[in-house]
C-alpha cells in the first residue's frame, strides 16, 4: 500500500497577502499617519501589530490612469496612499465610459470536455504540489486582476466630478466593513504607491485599537452617507448645495448585531413572537414619522399589527426606503404623519434617516410624479387569508423566507419538490464539474413544495467572510460570488461555523491514490472547507440548474421578488 503523503498543517500566515513585504516596508507602513498612534502593546504576541502589517498587507503600485477599484466590483481590502494621488469618481454616469475588467479564469472547451476522463476517481483529491506554489495568490483582490486603465486620464478626469485623495488618506473601508460592492471607482491620478490591507488585518487592528476603529468607522459613516444619498433616485434631482444641506441633516444609524449569525442560530428553533422580539425596532407602527428611512446595507423586516400579533408584509434591503408613503401622503393630502408599518432590523442594518421636513421641503418638490407612491389605501388582509390581493407570495412562504433569512441569498438554490424526482442529475452535474465532488447537498428546510437547498447562496451579506483568519474565503471582485482559495484555507472551519445556513463543509483531502493527506507532525488528516462556487470558470453557469430535467431547480436572487413569485407560482 502506498504511503500517505504528509504536509505541514496549514497556518494562518502561510500565504501572506504580499509575499515580498520586508521589514523596511513594514517600517514605512507603520509610519503612515493612519497607523502612527496604534498602541502595539494591545496586540498579543501571536498577532503582533507588525506581523499583521507584514502578512495581511502588501505594497501595490499603480500607474497614472490605472483603475484601482471600480464601483460595483467586490473587494474586502482597504487602501492607504503612500505616494501619489488618487481620484474618487463622484460622477456615476462616467462609469460606463471605462472599459470593464474581464479577468476571469475560463476553461477552454477542450479542458471542459476532458473532465469526462480527467476527474479524480476518489473524493476530495488535491494536488499538494500547488500548495507550495508561490505564484497566483488569492483569487479575489483587485491587485490580482488584470488592470484596466484610462488612456487619456487628464482629459477624462477634467470632464467629471472627482474627489482627490492624497498621501496618508485611505479608501475602500465601506466595502470592507459592510461586505457590499465598492461604492465608487477610484483611479490613479498620478503614479501611486499604496498599502493594501485585506479584511483580516483591518479586522484585527480595528478590534485591538479603539482610536483606529473610531477613525475607520467615522469615515465609513460619513462616506456611506454622502455616497448613498447621491445615488438615490429620490435625491438625484437636487442641486449640489441642497444635497449637501440634506446630507448635513441626515443621520446615519446602525441597528442590530454585526455578528448576527450567532444569535440567529440560537433563534432558529424559537417561535415567531420570540424571533420578532430579537429584531430591534427601527421605526414603529403608529409612531410619528420623523424621517425618511433609507436602507444603506443589511436587511429589515416590515410588519403590520394584526390582532395580537405582527404580520410580515415585506422586507427591505439596500436602496429600499421606508416611510415614504406616509410622508408623501402628508405632503400631498395633509394626512397624518403616523407610520402604517413597523421596520425591524434583521441581523444588522445600516440606515440613513432624512428628516421629514427636509424631505417635504427640498426633496419631494423635485421628484418626478412617477417615482412617488400611489395614494395610501387602508386595506388589510384578514389573518386567515394566505395571500393578499396584491401579494406576490403566500403569507406563510413569506414568513418562512424572512424567518429563515433566506432573503440573504443572491444565488439561492430552490427546488420545487412537487417536480423533483430525486434523480440526482443536479448532484451528478455538480460533481462532474468539481472533480467528482458534489458541492451541495440536495436537502434543506422545506416550506410546502419549496425546498431551500443546502448550497451556498452567495449572500448579499456573506457573514462567512468575517471570521476567516487567512482571507481564504472572499468575494470574486467581478461578480461577487463567494469563493474559497483552497491553498490559503487552513481548515479552521470558522466560515463553516459562521454560515447560518450550513452550506459550507469541512472535508478531509486525499492524494491521487486516495490516501488521506496527513499533517506531518500529528499525522491527522488535513481538512479544507468546500462549498458551491457557482461553477466558476465552467461554461454556461451553474451546472445544477442546467442539468435538472424537470424544471424543478433554480438559482435565484431572493431580492428579485417578481421573478421568485413567477417561479413559485408556475
Amino acid at each position, binding site marked *: 500500500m502506498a504511503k500517505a503523503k504528509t504536509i505541514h498543517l496549514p497556518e494562518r500566515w502561510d500565504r501572506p497577502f504580499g509575499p515580498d513585504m520586508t521589514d523596511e516596508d513594514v517600517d514605512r507602513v507603520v509610519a503612515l499617519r493612519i497607523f502612527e498612534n496604534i498602541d502595539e502593546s494591545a496586540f498579543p504576541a501571536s498577532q503582533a501589530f507588525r506581523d499583521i502589517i507584514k502578512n495581511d498587507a502588501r505594497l501595490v503600485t499603480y500607474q497614472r490612469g490605472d483603475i484601482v477599484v471600480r464601483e460595483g466590483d467586490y473587494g474586502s481590502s482597504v487602501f492607504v496612499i503612500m505616494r501619489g494621488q488618487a481620484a474618487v469618481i463622484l460622477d456615476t454616469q462616467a462609469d460606463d465610459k471605462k472599459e470593464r475588467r474581464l479577468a476571469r479564469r475560463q476553461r477552454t*472547451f477542450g479542458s*471542459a*470536455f476532458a*473532465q*469526462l476522463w480527467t476527474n479524480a476517481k476518489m473524493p476530495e483529491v488535491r494536488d499538494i504540489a500547488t500548495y507550495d506554489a508561490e505564484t497566483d495568490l488569492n483569487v479575489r483582490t483587485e491587485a490580482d486582476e488584470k488592470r484596466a486603465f484610462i488612456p487619456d486620464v487628464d482629459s477624462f478626469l477634467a470632464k467629471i466630478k472627482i474627489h482627490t485623495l492624497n498621501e496618508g488618506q485611505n479608501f475602500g473601508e465601506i466595502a470592507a466593513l459592510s461586505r457590499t460592492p465598492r461604492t465608487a471607482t477610484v483611479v490613479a491620478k498620478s503614479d501611486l504607491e499604496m498599502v493594501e490591507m485585506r479584511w483580516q488585518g483591518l479586522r484585527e487592528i480595528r478590534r485591538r485599537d479603539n482610536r483606529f476603529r473610531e477613525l475607520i468607522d467615522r469615515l465609513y459613516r460619513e462616506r456611506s452617507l454622502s455616497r448613498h444619498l447621491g445615488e438615490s433616485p429620490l435625491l438625484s434631482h437636487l442641486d449640489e448645495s441642497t444635497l449637501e444641506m440634506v446630507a448635513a441633516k441626515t443621520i446615519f444609524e446602525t441597528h442590530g448585531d454585526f455578528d448576527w449569525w450567532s444569535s440567529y442560530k440560537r433563534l432558529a428553533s424559537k417561535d415567531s413572537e420570540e424571533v420578532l422580539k430579537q429584531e430591534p425596532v427601527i421605526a414603529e407602527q403608529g409612531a410619528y414619522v420623523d424621517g425618511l428611512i433609507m436602507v444603506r446595507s443589511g436587511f429589515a423586516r416590515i410588519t403590520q399589527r394584526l390582532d395580537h400579533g405582527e404580520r410580515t408584509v415585506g422586507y427591505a434591503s439596500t436602496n429600499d426606503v421606508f416611510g415614504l408613503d406616509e410622508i408623501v401622503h402628508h405632503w400631498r393630502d395633509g394626512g397624518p404623519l403616523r407610520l402604517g408599518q413597523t421596520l425591524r432590523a434583521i441581523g444588522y442594518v445600516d440606515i440613513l434617516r432624512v428628516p421629514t421636513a427636509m424631505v417635504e421641503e427640498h426633496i419631494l418638490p423635485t421628484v418626478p410624479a412617477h417615482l412617488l407612491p400611489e395614494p395610501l389605501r387602508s386595506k388589510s388582509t384578514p389573518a386567515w387569508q394566505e395571500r393578499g390581493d396584491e401579494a406576490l407570495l403566500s403569507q406563510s412562504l413569506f414568513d418562512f423566507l424572512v424567518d429563515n433569512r433566506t432573503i440573504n441569498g443572491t444565488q439561492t438554490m430552490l427546488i420545487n*419538490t*412537487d*417536480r*423533483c*424526482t*430525486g*434523480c440526482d*442529475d443536479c448532484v*451528478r*452535474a455538480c460533481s*462532474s*464539474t468539481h472533480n467528482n465532488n458534489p458541492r451541495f*447537498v*440536495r*436537502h434543506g*428546510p*422545506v416550506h410546502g*413544495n419549496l*425546498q431551500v437547498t443546502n448550497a451556498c447562496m452567495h449572500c448579499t451579506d456573506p457573514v462567512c467572510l468575517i471570521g476567516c483568519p487567512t482571507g481564504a474565503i472572499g468575494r470574486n471582485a467581478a461578480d461577487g460570488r463567494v469563493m474559497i482559495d483552497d491553498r490559503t484555507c487552513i481548515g479552521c472551519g470558522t466560515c463553516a461555523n459562521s454560515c447560518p445556513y450550513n452550506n459550507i463543509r469541512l472535508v478531509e483531502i486525499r492524494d491521487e491514490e486516495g490516501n488521506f493527506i496527513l499533517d506531518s507532525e500529528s499525522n491527522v488528516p488535513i481538512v479544507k472547507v468546500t462549498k458551491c462556487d457557482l461553477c466558476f470558470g*465552467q*461554461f*454556461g453557469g451553474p*451546472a445544477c*440548474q*442546467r*442539468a*435538472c*430535467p*424537470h*424544471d*424543478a431547480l433554480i438559482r435565484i436572487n431572493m431580492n428579485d421578488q417578481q421573478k421568485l413569485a413567477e417561479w413559485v*407560482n*408556475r
Partner: protein
Amino acid sequence: MTFTSRRYRNILICAAIAASLVLLNWLFDMALRDASFLSGWLLIIGMAFLTIYNLRKKFPFLPLIPSAYWLQFHVYLGFIVIVLFLLHTSMEFPRGPFEITFWLLFFAVAGSGVIGIFITRNLPGRLQQRHGERLIFERIPVFRADLAEQVRELAMKSVTEISSSTIADYYAVRLNPYFAEPRNFSSHLFQSERPLVNLRREIRSIQRYLNKRGREILDDIEVHVIAKDNLDYPYALQLVLKGWLFVHIPLTYSLMIFALMHVVLVYAFAGRTL
C-alpha cells in the same frame, strides 16, 4: 409561463406536427409513392434524437441546451414518433419473430416512457407528505438500520424488565423480518395503509398479556413500527422513480439496434429504393 399553459402550447404544436405528418403520408399514398420510406426515415431520425438525450446528461460541463428543454423536446417528440410508427406500420400487427420483437420493443420503450412521465409528474408530490421533508434515498437504509437496532434493544430489554419472552418472541418472528428490509412495496405505491393497520392491530392484541411496563415497551415498539413504515413509503416511491429509467434506457438501446438492423434488411431486400 405556467406549466399548464406550456403544456397546452406544446400539445398544440405536437398535434399540429402529427397532423401534418398524417397529411403528408396520405399525400404520398395519393401520389402512389411509397410513404413507408419517408415515415421510416423520419422515424429513425426521431428515435435517434430521443436516444441522444441520455448522452446529453453525460456532459453537464458543456454549454449544451438545459436539460429541462431537452426533456420537453424528448417527451413531445416521443408522442410524434409514436404517430410516425403507427403510420409506418399502417397500424397492422407485425409478422415474423424479428418484426414482432421489434414491434414489442417499440411499444415497451414508448410505454415505459409514458409511464415514466406519469410517475415523474405524480409521485414527487406524494414523497414528502408523510415527513414534511424529502428524505435522501441513500440515507433511508441508515435510518432503517437505526430503527431496527432500537427495536432489537427494546425487545431484549423486555425479557429482563418484565420477565416474559412474549415481546422478544414476537420480535423474533414478526418484527425482525419487518425491520430487516423495505416492506409492503406495492401497498405504498398504491397508497394503501392496510399492512400497517394490520401490524398495529397485531401489536395491540398482545397488550392484554403484558404488565404495565410491558405495555410501555410495546407502545414504544409501535412508534418504531410506524416510523419504519414512514421510511418504506418514500423508499418505495423513490425506487420506482429511479428504477423506471433502468427499464426505459436499456430497452431504448435494444430498440435502436433492432431499428438499424431493420434499415439494413429493408435496403437489402426491398429490391429498389426511392
